[in-house]
């Protein structure tokens, strides 16, 4: 096995500790970017319509929990795709991708596929999932909808374990749940609440009327809850099927 999402691949020089390491942008590069930006339309990027702040846990080790920032793009009423970052400022690192589907779509997935997905009902009704700087009242209808969805979240950069660059294969992430093993550490929540001047407790109370159908609560998602198993991703070397020499 070449590498696993569970094991840090190896040591890197500590450098100045910056994540990622690297020289500041040169003036020349900034000018190049400005020139390009003036003519490019960047359409798919402009479709991102929501910023969500929530929490996720590593499927391979649920004691490792992170605050996440999702930039969400809705493709249709049943499907959303998210670029996930570790913060919401301009230096935020792209740490993965999450896909979100409605219950209707989730039910069409094969059981083996469903095991890779997590439910959103708890993290929304618990107030953990929120939209920074957007009034809760506006969000309510969307939250009712999203509380019945499922997500599939791959993390490609394990910043929380100190990786200064994205190392190893992607890791599968799970959502917070209201049972042992799925609870978010209070300190993480407190830190988030302080930064955005919100109260997760208050959000939870205001969402008491967000209900979730039984079918959603009894799904094959959140595999760890029934099986006490998570997933790691390994990468193995193999023969490449090829049509020409490589490299």
């Amino acid at each position: 096995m070449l590498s696993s999402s569970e094991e840090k691949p190896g040591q890197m020089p500590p450098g100045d500790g910056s994540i990622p390491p690297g020289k500041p942008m040169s003036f020349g590069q900034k000018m190049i970017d400005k020139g390009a930006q003036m003519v490019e339309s960047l359409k798919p990027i402009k479709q991102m319509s929501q910023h969500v702040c929530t929490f996720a846990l590593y499927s391979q080790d649920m004691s490792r929990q992170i605050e996440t920032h999702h930039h969400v793009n809705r493709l249709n009423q049943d499907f959303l795709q998210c670029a996930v970052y570790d913060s919401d400022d301009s230096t935020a690192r792209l740490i993965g991708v999450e896909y979100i589907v409605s219950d209707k779509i989730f039910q069409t997935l094969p059981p083996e596929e469903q095991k890779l997905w997590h439910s959103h009902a708890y993290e929304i009704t618990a107030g953990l999932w929120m939209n920074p700087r957007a009034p809760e009242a506006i969000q309510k209808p969307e939250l009712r909808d999203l509380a019945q969805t499922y997500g599939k979240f791959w993390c490609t950069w394990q910043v929380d374990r100190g990786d200064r660059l994205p190392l190893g294969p992607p890791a599968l992430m799970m959502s917070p749940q209201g049972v042992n093993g799925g609870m978010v550490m209070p300190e993480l929540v407190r830190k988030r609440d302080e930064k955005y001047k919100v109260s997760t407790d208050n959000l939870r109370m205001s969402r008491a009327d967000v209900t979730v159908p039984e079918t959603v609560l009894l799904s094959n998602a959140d595999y760890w809850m029934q099986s006490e198993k998570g997933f790691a991703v390994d990468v193995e070397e193999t023969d490449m099927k090829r049509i020409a020499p490589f490299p």
Partner: protein
Amino acid sequence: MEGENVSTQPEVPGEPTQTSTALLETATATLQGFGPVNKIHQHLCAFHFYAHDMTRQVEAHHFCGHQNEDFRQCLIYDKPDDDGKLIGLEYIISEELFLTLPDNEKPFWHTHEFEVKGGYLFMPGVPGPIQSQDLEKVCKTYGKTIHFWQIDRGDSLPLGIPQVMMALTRDGQLYPNLAQDVESRFGISFAKERENRAYMTGPAHGLHPLGNAAGRGLQTVLREVDCKPVESVPSVFV
């Protein structure tokens, strides 16, 4: 065997977005900041194939932002349109950063020299001289690409596990029909680009022997692990 044309891909299942949902999301968008997304300033089009299977090739539209001079992070879509599917991501690093990677990490990363000099990696709609200024830097970089959505096998949803991807490293790898399709849709000629880029040079230390998986295939595998025993974590709520 021909490559699949991306325009024949199946639609994502689901109802059209309701007006009320769209309005709500527009309202939200005007109130929120989009920090890291606002830093995305560049669109690059290139080709990837699966790290275990060169016969499966896809057109990849990268939307990139710089973290610093040595590091870019890119979102990858199947097409540069409003309804583009987010199929993967790529990190692009300078040779200097690549050399600091542990040896069992280096194989994940592919070189860009051939696809830049070959003309296959380009910035749609951007005038040649501006492209060149940036591409001559990209020419020396390494990239790590992961795809989550295997649209080339007809998946209308992102099924399965992530796939490590590789990039073109020599003539004869890219399906001619894929190349011609991109050339005609974006109004460019790879042959012409190749001429324009003849002056560019790759990494100062040459292509690292561990890069491009040292010529091996890479395959991701899912493995079940036991959940570690957890003491009861104090709940936030009483």
